[in-house]
């Protein structure tokens, strides 16, 4: 059976629409805020041999690219000959799924006329999985909650009630987690139904020829883009805060005619806390970084992903083997696009942004019994709550544009409105505003971080489970741009909190979180003075910083004092030259 190129394109478009429907079903029915509010999920279609052929654009990179490989693990446990109509498989294995127990991956084989024609897989982040809770405290993966090996979730006779019983008994929010499991099943079912309809409409018995066409075209497009880059090997290092010691990330990126290789040899070893990264998650964010720069328009599938090989030596923090604790693997993993950008910048100047906050600054807040260092008897009347609110610092400046302020990159998830968080908890937020001067100065300014200030409105203590980085080591600027401001956790009463770990805030105190800003791009002395004046007018930049970092002097009305600015900038340049 042969198809015209138009028919193949129509079917490709259809397949992308099918996985988008799959993802939308998950969002509409999910219980956990991570899925339904923030869009922390992924959904995709796979060929009978386990190669991913289409993936919903809805989703986060960490899930997207790691789920692509997870189906291969399922196929090893349940080969096609052991698969029957009605089967649904599940796992939350960090090394075979998407990096920590909170992510459930469900794989559903699709049958048409009794024949296995492909698979649908989806992943979402559930609100709880038992254990010590999502943070950095766990020292082994066994502390982190319930492990679900790759196993049957359902067969033709219905759901695996035994498994669901165990899940319900182990998690703190059984209704929500069970509801999310049903959502995962439902979303794959929608995908399967649409795929069968499509195969009927186009009279296709075998998805493989179409899949091979899609994968080949995508691979060719990626390779074409890669071959347009100067071949060579590029190296980048970055130091981040870590917990017990700073972490050095080391990246070697090689551009060759047959693809891009990213290796993390030289990176620091593992942490004894839960910030270690399974290799699948390293692969996900490193290849995402490559795709953003090299060929952002090429749809994600096995062909696209196959052109980027990601490796890290076992035992580094980026390839932590079982039983390493990995709960907060995002904190280090989300730094990897910055690592890749640092390499690609050497190959293709002026295409990648400066470093940004990069890791999400999610607020995991709780109240009621169980707060660290608080006598539980004092909490008997406190309203219990447990909430995660997604928030972000500043992103790095781009070569031709300022960085995005308070915007998630690379993750891309949405925040939760303050009014919603306040409606669900006794918390009161007193401030959520841009943090002046936090964006790194540059010809293009880094994105601003934000400042949030909050308290428990009912006069009880509350806790924050902090998983923040960029508190000691700021996001660096590029091409002369200055670093963004580091982040900070303090209280109104004058305490400084650790950036990682679960800590209590006293009943009469307020927590103040200052988010990092993104790095700047290019020499700040080259930023147009009018743009600096505009930033001062908008109070993104203070008049002092305008003078100090940009060499821009403003008059009383806020306009640029042109002669003074020119003189000051000339002096700065001269003294720089003298220093060199």
């Amino acid at each position: 059976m042969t198809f015209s190129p138009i028919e193949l394109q129509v079917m490709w478009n259809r397949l992308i629409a099918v996985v988008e429907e799959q993802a939308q079903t998950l969002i509409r029915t999910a219980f956990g805020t991570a899925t339904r509010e923030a869009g922390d999920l992924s959904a995709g279609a796979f060929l009978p041999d386990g190669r991913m052929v289409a993936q919903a654009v809805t989703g986060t990179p960490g899930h997207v690219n790691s789920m692509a490989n997870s189906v291969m693990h399922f196929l090893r446990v349940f080969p096609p000959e052991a698969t029957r109509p009605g089967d649904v498989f599940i796992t939350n294995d960090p090394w075979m799924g998407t990096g920590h127990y909170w992510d459930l991956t469900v794989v559903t084989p699709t049958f048409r006329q009794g024949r296995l024609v492909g698979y649908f897989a989806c992943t979402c982040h559930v609100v709880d999985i038992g254990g010590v809770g999502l943070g950095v405290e766990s020292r082994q993966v066994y502390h982190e909650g319930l492990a679900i090996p790759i196993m049957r979730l359902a067969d033709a006779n219905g759901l695996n009630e035994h498994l669901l019983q165990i899940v319900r008994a182990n998690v703190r929010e059984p209704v929500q987690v069970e509801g999310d499991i049903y959502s995962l099943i439902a979303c794959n079912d929608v995908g399967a139904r649409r795929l069968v309809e499509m195969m009927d409409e186009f009279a296709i018995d075998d998805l493989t020829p179409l899949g091979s066409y899609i994968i080949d075209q995508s691979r060719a497009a990626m390779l074409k883009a890669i071959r347009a880059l100067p071949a060579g090997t590029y190296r980048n290092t970055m130091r981040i805060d870590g917990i017990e010691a700073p972490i050095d990330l080391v990246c070697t990126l090689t551009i060759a005619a047959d693809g891009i290789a990213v290796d993390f040899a030289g990176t620091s070893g593992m942490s004894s806390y839960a910030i270690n990264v399974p290799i699948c998650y390293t692969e996900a964010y490193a290849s995402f970084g490559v795709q953003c720069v090299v060929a952002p328009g090429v749809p994600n599938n096995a062909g696209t992903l196959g052109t980027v090989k990601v490796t890290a030596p076992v035992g580094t923090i980026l390839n932590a083997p079982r039983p390493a604790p990995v709960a907060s693997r995002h904190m280090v993993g989300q730094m990897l696009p910055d690592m890749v950008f640092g390499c690609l910048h050497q190959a293709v100047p002026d295409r990648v942004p400066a470093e940004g906050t990069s890791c999400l600054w999610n607020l995991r807040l709780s109240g009621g019994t169980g707060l660290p260092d608080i006598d539980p008897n004092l909490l008997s009347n406190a309203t219990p709550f447990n909430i995660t609110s997604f928030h972000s610092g500043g992103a790095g400046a781009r070569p031709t544009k300022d960085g995005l302020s308070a915007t998630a990159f690379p993750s891309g998830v949405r925040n939760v409105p303050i009014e919603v968080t306040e409606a669900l908890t006794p918390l009161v937020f007193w401030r959520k505003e841009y943090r002046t001067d936090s964006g790194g100065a540059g010809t293009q300014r880094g994105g601003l971080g934000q400042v949030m200030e909050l308290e428990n409105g009912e006069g009880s203590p509350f806790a924050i489970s902090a998983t923040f980085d960029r508190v000691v080591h700021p996001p660096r600027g590029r091409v002369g741009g200055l670093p963004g401001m580091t982040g900070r956790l303090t209280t109104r009463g004058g305490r400084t909190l650790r950036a990682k770990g679960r800590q209590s805030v006293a009943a009469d105190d307020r927590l103040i979180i200052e988010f990092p800003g993104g790095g700047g791009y290019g020499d700040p002395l080259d930023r147009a003075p009018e743009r600096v004046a505009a930033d001062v007018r908008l109070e993104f930049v203070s008049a002092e910083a305008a003078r100090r970092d940009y060499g821009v002097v403003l008059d009383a009305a806020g306009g640029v004092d042109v002669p003074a600015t020119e003189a000051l900038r000339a002096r700065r340049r001269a003294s720089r030259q003298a220093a060199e």
Partner: protein
Amino acid sequence: MPPSARLAVDIGGTFTDVVVETTDGRTTTKVLTTPRAPEVGVIEGIRRVLQVGAIAPADIAIVVHGTTLATNAIIERKGAPTALITTDGFRDSVEMALENRFEQYDLYMDKPPPLVPRDRRFTVIERVDARGRVLRPLDEAAVAALAERLPALGIASVAVGFLHSYANPEHERRAGAIVARHAPGLAVTLSSDVCPEIREYDRLSTACANAYVQPLMASYLARLADALKDEGIGCPLFLMQSGGGLLTVEMAIRQPIRLVESGPAGGAILAGTVAEECGLDRVLSYDMGGTTAKICLIDDGRPETARSFEVGRVYRFLKGSGLPLRIPVIEMVEIGAGGGSIARIDALGRIAVGPDSAGSEPGPVCYARGGTEPTVTDADVVMGRVDPARFAGGKVRLDPAAAETAVAASIGAALDLDVAHAAHGIAEIVDENMANAARVHAIERGKAVADRTLVAFGGAAPLHAGRLAEKLGIARIVVPSGAGVGSAIGFLRAPVSYEVVRSHYARLSALDLGAINAMLDEMAAEARSVVRLGAPAAELTERRQISMRYVGQGHEIVVALPARRLVASDAALLQAAFDDAYRHLYARTIAGHEAEILSWTLNLSTTVAPPARVAMPRPNGAAVPAGERSVFDPSRRRHVAMPVHRRDAIAEGALVRGPALIVEDETTTVVPAAFDATVNAIGYIVMTRRGGSEATP
């Protein structure tokens, strides 16, 4: 005789459509929109239809008007200099938005710039909590001092938006009153008036947008009312709302944000009327013009409605890239697929169509007005579906050779296809894009598409409806008459209505009936006061709805509420209604899990008498073609001679066997090979798939 003629005016980006209906029939015209003073084009169009229809201005009983003016002001950022007064500590809510990226891989993504920049956003001390309790009183002196500064800063309009004002609007009302007293020249919008709903970004964004367009709309509507009076048209003037109902001028001036999507709403209303006329329970409304296609689900003659909309998407049509508005809207999906949508080869060697459009200037290549990139219309011309000599009633002469050259160069050469196959490829991709959008839209609404009748209107829809129906498994298509001015015709079918919403959280297990009934009474009184302005004596229909979800979920579903005071036993009724709706959407309910109510909506509208029912035409002989034309036939992969019928020459029930073309001045209807077409008693084309479900609704 009392005046009885009904006049509708729809101002679009390019054309202003004017329709007048009398007992004798309908007269329509299109004139060019006059953006700087839109009332000039309106009056020109009105003069023209009145002249053609031989109608005196005094005979006009009602004028219904819809306009894209507010939308364009937002998209082009040409509204009034606007200030926002908000809660201390929350100056940046409207700019931080959702802190997300709607385009995952684009490192150069930009967010939509806020309508109110940071130096026009002011904070004052005040704070209300989520339950409406005052944590900090309003600093009234600070509001007064601020108000006095605003005129000197060039501010013309003010939005007041405080945290949790949906739960307690008192601070906003006092601040608004203080601004009115200390800066009497400024327009004032309260977020608790335009959008009393939880989620600060959405509510403040809506309030800012309302404030931003308010002075402009107030001045335009006043000028229009004067111009109509000068023409001798003294009858009431109503504005079409995006939610599908009509609003008086006075209300429209206060809440112009409710007018943003009025044109597409008119189209959906028309499709709803067609559904009722033809007795169709389930319809997919399909409106395809020059730049976009709009698809809407219509059950039992009523378009689906929603309470959120995005205006001015910076990445055209990409969800999340625009400014959110929480207003009553007709729920529809709009994609960049129109006659002017540009086709090109993407990085993967595939045909990509849209979302950018050649618009009307320069327009498709075949218009010969400077366009160089091939468009959907060019593809239709190359395939022979459009008669170059008859396009737009012969007003625009087309250059098919130029279209062929462009299609061959841009698409054919890259894919090694001859020009006809390349043109067919463009049509296939745009039809597939629309089909996919319809499918995803339906799943988002928990509905199916295949069992629906497609109602196609807008200049480009009849050309593509057949293939779209095939792709969606749809067996019947109706093309109403007047397809080119469908929105304006829809305006004339809309009721006077007003919708009120309140955020009021309640668990089904603990309904505070006293508070809820008091709130519903207040909402009913508010809606009545607005509707009675425009319809002092008409019979009214009230609909109440609540949005519900399981405790812990994030997305609500809409459940009907009886239009009366609630009693204790209603909790069980609502639980059952929620279970039904949930099961319908997601196949199963979650036993033992509690449901909660988030918001309450009350819609009051004048009762519209159902239109006369028209039977599906009975097959009655064969229609005689007026000629034939060489048209590309995808199934045979070559041009073939295809019969061409004139729409006005087809007798009721006379069968046109596909493949065939049915032509008229405004457009051409393509009858696919698998369909038969005929017209019904009121001239609507009805196409039915052979062997599919027959013409029994």
